[in-house]
């Protein structure tokens, strides 16, 4: 015959044993926890063989006076066990997935998406900023005649500036035919225009690969009266050997604005807007006087070094500035070539290398990477 005290001690033992069993069941993978929990439920709260049922079975053996107290103690134990099991059960249920669930951590089936070429990205950024500023974006022929590439740009045959241009020539000149693009064949000013440029009346044989997009300026002005507000972007060609910073083909962006009262200060504002669009807000711009045959005054334009912010670093050769383009006020001789009156209109023009911008923007150390089309390179750029 057990005394009540012995039975109370027995309940305390049960409490300890349950806590230990519970702790053991808490370890392991979810599936193992699930079966351990099931075993605990059967072993403790089972109606027939459960440990709590066993305790309750001792009730009749107690003196009637103790039965009530013991019954309350066992019921309290039962409540504690059930609560603990219910809590574990709820936690497990939260991790259990529905039968139709998938493992969302597996790789997805991605529809193919190509990568933009960095030169194309720069080109688009330049186009965007100038379209915002109300420019038209134009393209022109890549095989040119001497007149549009040089002569009309104030570079007659003997001009020393032609030394600056190392030109690729065709083995046999092409005569522009009716099939040649409209831009290349049109030599007439617009209907109703009284302009008389000094351009030749007949189309000239095409002899060379354009060395700059400036040739496009001339073609446009020949065919359109001022005002002019354009950017022309495309490949240009020079006889440069391939090295870290040179390729015989590269891309240029040309800007031209012509109208009454256009000033060098307008050029500065415009290029500042472009620099901020390309390199970020607050990018400063600096003009340095220079020389180009087709502009007067002429200026090389620098932007504040985008690597060091102007403090000086190896990229900017410790000057704090990076040269990005050449520019200036359109030379009156160029206006005369297309039949504009330099007393009536002024204009500004600039030419920028797209590769140079891309190299600075993305820290590309070798210009040749742009022409290898290595997917490991291209995949670093997104849409």
């Amino acid at each position, binding site marked *: 015959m057990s005394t009540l005290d012995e039975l109370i001690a027995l309940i305390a033992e049960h409490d300890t044993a349950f806590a230990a069993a519970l702790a053991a069941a808490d370890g392991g993978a979810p599936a193992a926890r699930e079966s351990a929990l099931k075993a605990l439920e059967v072993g403790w709260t089972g109606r027939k063989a459960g440990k709590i049922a066993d305790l309750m079975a001792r009730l009749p053996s107690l003196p009637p006076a103790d039965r009530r107290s013991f019954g309350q103690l066992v019921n309290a134990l039962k409540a504690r066990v059930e609560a603990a099991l219910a809590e574990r059960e709820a936690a497990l249920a939260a991790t259990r997935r529905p039968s139709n669930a998938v493992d969302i951590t597996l790789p997805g*089936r991605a529809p193919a998406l190509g990568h933009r070429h960095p030169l194309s990205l720069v080109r688009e950024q330049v186009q965007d900023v100038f379209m915002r500023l109300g420019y038209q974006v134009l393209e022109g022929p890549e095989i040119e005649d001497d007149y549009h590439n040089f002569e009309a740009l104030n570079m007659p045959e003997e001009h020393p500036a032609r030394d600056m241009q190392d030109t690729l020539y065709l083995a046999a000149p092409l005569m522009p035919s009716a099939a040649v693009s409209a831009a290349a064949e049109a030599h007439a000013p617009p209907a109703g225009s009284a302009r008389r440029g000094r351009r030749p009346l007949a189309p000239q044989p095409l002899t060379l690969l354009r060395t700059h997009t400036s040739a496009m300026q001339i073609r446009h002005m020949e065919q359109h009266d001022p005002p002019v507000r354009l950017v022309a972007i495309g490949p240009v060609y020079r006889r440069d050997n391939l090295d870290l910073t040179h390729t015989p083909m590269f891309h240029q962006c040309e800007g031209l604005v012509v109208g009454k009262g256009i000033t060098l200060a307008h050029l*500065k504002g415009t290029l500042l807007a472009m620099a901020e669009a390309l390199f970020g807000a607050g990018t400063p711009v600096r003009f340095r006087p220079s020389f180009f045959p087709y502009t007067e005054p002429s200026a090389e334009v620098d932007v504040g070094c985008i690597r060091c912010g102007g403090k000086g670093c190896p990229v900017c050769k410790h000057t704090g500035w990076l040269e990005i383009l050449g520019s200036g*006020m359109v030379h009156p001789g160029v206006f005369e070539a297309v039949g504009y009156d330099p007393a009536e209109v002024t204009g500004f023009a600039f030419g920028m290398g797209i590769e140079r911008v891309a190299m600075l923007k993305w820290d590309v150390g070798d210009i040749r990477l742009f022409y290898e089309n290595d997917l490991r390179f291209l995949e670093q750029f997104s849409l």
Partner: protein
Amino acid sequence: MRVLYSWLRDFVDVSDGPAEIGRRLSLRGLALEALEPAPPGDDPPGVAPLPDDAVLDFDVTANRPDCMSVAGIAREVATAYGLPLRLPSASAAGHLRSIDLRGVDSASFSVRIDAPERCTRYVGAAADVRVGPSPAWLQRRLTALGVRPISNVVDITNYVLLELGQPMHAFDHARLDGNAIVVRQAQANEALTTLDGKARTLAADMLVVADATRAAAIGGVMGGADSEVRADSSRIVFESAWFTPQTVRATSKRLGVRSEASMRFERGADPTAQAAAMARACALLEIIGAGRADGTMVDALARPHVPRVITVTHAHIEALLGMPVPPAEVERLLGALGFTLLAGGAAAAWQVTVPGWRPDVVRPEDVIEEVGRHHGFEHLPATFPPVHQAPPPSDPRVARDAKVRKAMLGMGFSEAISFAFIEASAATPFAGGAPLITLANPLSETFAVMRPSVLPGVVDAVSHNRRHGRRDVQLAEIATAFAAGGERRSLAAAWTGAAAGDHWSGARRDVDFFDMKGVVAQACAALGVTPDFAVTEREYLVAGRAAAVTVAGRPAGVVGLLAPVLAEARGIPKGDDVFVLELDLAVLSAAAATAAIRVEPLPRFPAVVRDVSLLVDDSLSASTVRDTIRHAAPITLVSVREFDRYQGRGVPPGKVSVSLRLTFRADDRTLTDDDVAAAMQGILAAVRDGLGAEQR
């Protein structure tokens, strides 16, 4: 142009150090290329050595011959700093002294200019000399500027050239036959051994400085060896002349000789500087103890220089620059640069006389540039050009190409950009027999011809990626292709490897013809046009896996499997299937332009779908079956499309089972089963009678 800091200080008392001068001049039009420590050594007598002496190397633009001298750069420094310029003169002391020479008609020698249109002025002066080495200070200055010291007399000619920009030459008086100097055209095949020891044969259009019998120098380019000053020469004649840039450039280019003299004459030396340079050279003889000049000069002036006068208004200056520059500042800056200004006529206008050393200043705009650059571009405000009318539209190619580019990106093609010139052997298969556009002076054979198609560049890009371990490659390029008939904007693309990449859910599938055909259709769809396909044969495509694309009846391109022999020739691993396409974007956009866009009303009545399986000869093309069905069907047939194709068990050899889905719909009513049954009956009869097809 290299300049020694201490030499600059002969002419301008600038207190800033060399680095700061370089920085400041870089913002005034003379870009500092490099700053090097000065070579050690002596300074002229009475000149204190500078601890921070240095060589400044400026990049002088082609229009500025005046900056090809120390004095010319000193003038820029003086202007930039607002300091006076001090040039050599008879009143100057020490090594800066010059002398006054008396002009005479002839001296111990005579001068005659027979080519006045090419040599406008020739100044000669004779001197007795003791040939020997120059003093250390003079040698140091030459060395610092990259000129090798030779002897005191020759060094003086080089010193004056570097100091004042006027090329000089010295003849051994004793070797001038007839004591005569004649500037004339060379005789055809006239022989002359130049100072560099090379025997040269001259052409009749070259200019020579000759004695009574033979050429003694090539005018403005290089002296002759016979008449050069030697160690035993005791009497010399200095030459200080002006040759036209065209003459010197043409001769220098033809002979392949570039000298310090020719570089300066080519750009345009000062046509008024000859006498002053001669006086300076004669003074230097005495300053360094190399001899004594006669004190006279023969100044043969064939064509006097007429200074250019340009009218510039203050309003024009401010209107072109877009910044205010006070009139007093205009006068100060131009005056410092050597222009003389006469305020005159209208209010705030000047008659500006251009100094002889500025051949580049021709128009008012050139004068305005001088004002602008020295006032400082840093003062320019940032403003915007006003807009007075709506901007005209852009070139339609820009937006079109962007659409096609996006469509290709969306189908997984990365964007390639390749060189427009390629190897002739890579170009030929793509030219279709048309002549290639060949370059006269290509960099190498790999860049010899303009691409007749954009495909070769894309194929090479595939090859590059395959050779660098990439198995699956999808590349597309939109660029110009070249033919004698003109330039053509083309889309080219290549696809090799997986059509559907490796994925845990299933096996990968390699790209096939129909993937690429689908790309053609989608690229066309991006522009709102529909392509048609026909069997074709191309040298660069595998027969039986090649289709010609037409859009609105015009040839628009091709799609197919690249010929393995070509792929291998470009370095693509053997066994790779590379599918390619090329589309003429102008043909696509022309078709798009004429395709009117009008919205079709949405169907009001339901469609009825019937599937049918037919057993047909496997030589019959799918399009023949489709066309036969369409032809036999009533107008209510809105689409017919293959959804299965089977050969194998249950299908006799030479036959194929094709399953088609036919969709019927009427605009005005719901079709009944009878309607569709009647249509199907007609269709089945037509394929049976026309194609021998059985329904399965």
